[in-house]
């Protein structure tokens, strides 16, 4: 058969109309079946769904930053003992001499 030969089925298919009516609860039934196939979400999904909202994420991130800054301010780095600093700077045998330049 050549590609441009009309198929006799084309006209027939063009005239075909579906006469069937969908039942009144068709949509509800579709959703019921979908729901029956879907498993219940576990606690991880429920927790993630509850937590991962934009506003809550912003609040959590801001709280983490605030707590980290507060911890840093209340736990500053240890200052070098001035006596040890002097010894470090004059003793060639001090293990930290070169690191402490």
């Amino acid at each position, binding site marked *: 058969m050549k590609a441009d030969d009309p198929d006799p089925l084309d006209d027939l298919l063009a005239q075909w109309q579906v006469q069937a009516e969908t039942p009144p609860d068709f949509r509800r039934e579709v959703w019921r079946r979908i729901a029956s196939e879907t498993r219940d*979400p576990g606690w*991880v*999904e429920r*927790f*993630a*769904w509850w*937590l*991962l909202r934009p506003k809550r*994420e912003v609040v*959590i*991130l801001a709280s*983490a*930053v605030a*707590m*980290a*800054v507060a*911890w*840093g*301010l209340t*736990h*500053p*780095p240890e*200052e*070098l003992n*001035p*006596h040890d*600093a*002097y*010894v*470090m*700077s*004059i*003793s*060639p*045998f*001090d293990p930290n*001499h*070169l690191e*402490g*330049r």
Partner: protein
Amino acid sequence: MTPAGRLIGFAMLTAAIAAISLWTTRESLRSRESPQDVGLRWLKDEYHLGDAAFERVSILHRDYFQQCDKMCRQIDAAGRPLLWRSRHRGSKTGQLDAQFNKEQAICADCEKAATDHLNQVAALMPPEQSKRFLDDILPILQQQRREHDRRVSSSIRR
């Protein structure tokens, strides 16, 4: 992405941001003074140095520090083959002895230079402070030398 994956990703992001915040905060509080400056300030306060004496001590210290840095590198270079076991495992005893003697000679020179520097600094102090200064610092220098020698010797004996 699965909900569990999103939760883990969010937890890691939060931890990373918190860690960066903590590091930045602590670094901003860290003193910008070098150990040399901290040490010199301590020396001035502890031994009641006047401005003129402190100025001379600072000059002495600056000159000595460059020398000390050089000595430190020499000790490091001479001691590395002795401390690095795998390097000298195959070495002959004669080679090892020669390396050890060279290292000890450098250490002796360094200790003498450090002691001379401390005596020069002490000479700029009032007599009672001078004695207190030498009684404080010299034993530490000698102790550090002994610890250094012990590290090197124990490495050779292994």
